[in-house]
């Protein structure tokens, strides 16, 4: 998904309000990509490891995220 053509799907077809991608459009992708490229904090892999190790039968309470994986 990296850097596909900047105005491909915006520019083509729909001839309404947004004809061309504004000059900051690339910045939006940069913002996104800069986060995608960050090193993944261990907390996420740890969390998934713990989930995998836990039987899936437990109740799906998504609020219970205080398992030491906070921060960053």
């Amino acid at each position, binding site marked *: 998904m990296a850097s596909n053509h900047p105005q491909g799907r915006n520019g083509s077809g729909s001839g309404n309000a947004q004809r061309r991608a504004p000059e900051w459009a690339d910045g939006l992708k940069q913002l*996104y990509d800069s986060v995608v490229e960050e090193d993944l904090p261990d907390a*996420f892999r740890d969390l998934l490891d713990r989930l995998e190790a836990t039987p899936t039968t437990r109740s799906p309470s998504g609020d219970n*995220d205080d398992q030491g994986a906070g921060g960053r």
Partner: protein
Amino acid sequence: MSDGGQPAPARSASDKSDFKRELTGVVPHLRAFARGLCGRPDLADDLVQETLLKAWAAQDRFEPGTSMRAWTFVILRNAYLTDMRRNRFRGEYDEGVAERILIEPAGQEEPIHLSDLHRALLTLPAERREALLLVGAGGFSYEEAAAICGCAVGTIKSRVGRARAALSEMLASGAVPRRSTDDETAHRAILEELDMVSSGNGVSTRG
């Protein structure tokens, strides 16, 4: 997340590890989407963790072969809207990488600060912000973005168009809110439209 589906057969260990691998693969994208939505890296990461827990609990509803990124974005988005309603996010903005990156638009004297762009983005109503993030940053098609947000393609197009127009105007006029986005404008705008968003789209978890 309860749509009362029938109990699915227990997944095999290999299903589980496939799921885990795919889920791990989209975490960087979840972080990026969350950061765009809520501005503060720590809150964004909390949101991602919440999303992972929910996705894990709902893994029987994921259809292998469909887009894990789209599926988890739906979950993240719903979690975000719920948290917003609980007033967790206040459009706070933390200067991070963005502060150090300049965009150099061709043929324009003033470079645009990515941090300005991000702050401007955070002033947009939630529904426009997410539409623009999905299409303009995440690279989703209008159709995919519409499926994620549970609305019509035309609606997404118009949200993206309005978001672009608003950002262009803000950036051109220099009317970007400064650092502390405890900023009334942002917050009010977000809350105003939140009801619309949440009433319009229930929890739809289709991939």
